[in-house]
């Protein structure tokens, strides 16, 4: 990690205690920005690129601050579990909302109704818009960053629970 990254990470870490918004207010802000980001990326014509890059850039920066103990793992499924556990431990979202299982190189994740992004997905569903699972983008980018492993994912079902299938893609 570059020293400037470490310094800014430390600064961000120090500021964490000084947030004045309520939990409900922060949830509304999250929904506001996520909804706006989804609509904007759609209007620019490439949601996959936009969301993948947002997750990539965000994770590269904020895994240092928000998940200092998460180091990844040799197994992709174990890395997904560890990442989710660490996100839970740091209070980012309720990690027990997700269960993972590995099925012959394919990772399957079930995320229940406690998902912090669910209200935005439901809003979009009600508006007849495609669902873009930000949790799946996050997991795929985490695997790319921590394990240098390339996974494509499919949201097989938006429901209770949401079902995500992640398959490894060939790379050089």
């Amino acid at each position: 990690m570059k020293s400037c990254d470490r310094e800014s990470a430390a600064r961000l870490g120090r500021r964490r205690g000084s947030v004045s918004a309520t939990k409900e207010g922060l949830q509304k802000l999250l929904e506001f920005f996520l909804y706006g980001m989804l609509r904007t990326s759609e209007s620019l014509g490439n949601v996959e690129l936009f969301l993948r890059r947002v997750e990539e850039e965000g994770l590269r920066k904020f895994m240092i601050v928000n998940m200092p103990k998460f180091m990844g793992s040799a197994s992709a499924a174990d890395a997904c579990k560890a990442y989710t556990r660490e996100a839970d431990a740091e209070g980012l979202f309720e990690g027990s909302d997700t269960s993972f299982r590995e099925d012959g190189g394919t990772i399957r994740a079930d995320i229940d109704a406690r998902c912090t992004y669910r209200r935005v997905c439901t809003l979009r569903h009600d508006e007849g818009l495609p669902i873009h699972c930000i949790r799946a983008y996050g997991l795929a980018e985490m695997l790319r960053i921590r394990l240098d492993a390339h996974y494509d994912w499919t949201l097989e079902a938006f429901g209770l629970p949401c079902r995500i299938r992640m398959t490894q893609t060939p790379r050089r």
Partner: protein
Amino acid sequence: MTDLWDRLDEAIGQLSDITDIRAAAIVRRDGLVIAHNLPDGVDPKLVAAMTAAIVGTSEMATLQLAQGPFARAVIEAQDGKMISMGAGEEALLVALVYKDANLGLVLMGMDRVARRVDEILRPGVRSTTGTETW
């Protein structure tokens, strides 16, 4: 799997045979690099992301302005051109072209290679990034 990369390298190589093309890359629509022969000093990840953004925005623009299906984006700069186009459902093709290039020849070559890339990647090589509508 080596065969897949060999065939993609071969496709890129076909573009290199056109002397008006300086370098080329095959990238995914979500902005990840598949194969390239970009020169040193050019970041392939950045080129891939920019190509995906250019094509995505261009496709949206042609749709919104009722200009029919998107064919290609040609960006002209002082020292050369950047041409981006689709290469099947999953991939895009981008070429850096010399400023005084024979565009007719370049576009013919790119169309041919784009079709070839589509053939190589089509038979279940990768699944799509998952976005569903209900």
